[in-house]
């Protein structure tokens, strides 16, 4: 079946511009996660959605970052007023029910470069 998909695969933007990154989880998966993979910080958690519950935003690095999940499926990560330190690969993952022992399935990522 189809895996997690993300778009765009690459995004180049200028400092100060806003960007939107999209994630389509595996059909039927109720849990969705955003992570960021960067050279200096490794893989770090950003935000977690589980069903209709309020998202866990504890990993968002600043208030310039926000995310929403519409209809319990597609999610959009928005970064406002981008900075050069936002350059990274943004990964989305989904799991069936959100239990801690479940496998998280990752998408290919969006590579963001802020000039």
């Amino acid at each position, binding site marked *: 079946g189809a*895996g997690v998909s993300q778009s765009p695969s690459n995004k180049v933007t200028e400092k100060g511009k806003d960007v939107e990154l999209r994630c389509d989880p595996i059909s039927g998966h109720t849990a969705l996660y955003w992570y960021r993979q960067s050279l200096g910080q490794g893989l770090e*958690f950003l935000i*977690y959605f589980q069903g209709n519950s309020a998202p*866990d935003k504890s990993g968002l690095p600043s208030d310039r970052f926000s995310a929403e999940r519409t209809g319990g499926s597609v999610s959009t990560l928005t970064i406002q007023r981008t900075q050069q330190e936002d350059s990274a690969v943004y*990964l989305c*993952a989904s799991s069936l029910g959100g239990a801690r*022992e479940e*496998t998280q399935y990752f*998408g290919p990522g969006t590579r963001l470069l802020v000039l």
Partner: protein
Amino acid sequence: AQSVSQHNHHVILSEAASLELGCNYSYGGTVNLFWYVQYPGQHLQLLLKYFSGDPLVKGIKGFEAEFIKSKFSFNLRKPSVQWSDTAEYFCAVTAQTGANNLFFGTGTRLTVIP
């Protein structure tokens, strides 16, 4: 807070050599442990995981890992590596309390020389 340490940043092996990649975590409670792999140009995928039962876990492609609770370790092993095992390997943890997200180690790059 949870943390995961992978002390080997880059490992270079010849084909047929044995592999052991170290992973230590710091967390006092019950944990779930994962090894993910990222092959060149591909996305992260699960190699194996442990959440209960037999502490020796077998995964795909001949990999295995052993959970040693007393050492807070979950080392990854393979008796004989192949060139196709060249990849980056990430150890990760979820805790039984707090957030559901994975806490990742910094990764170990494995290069297998044919």
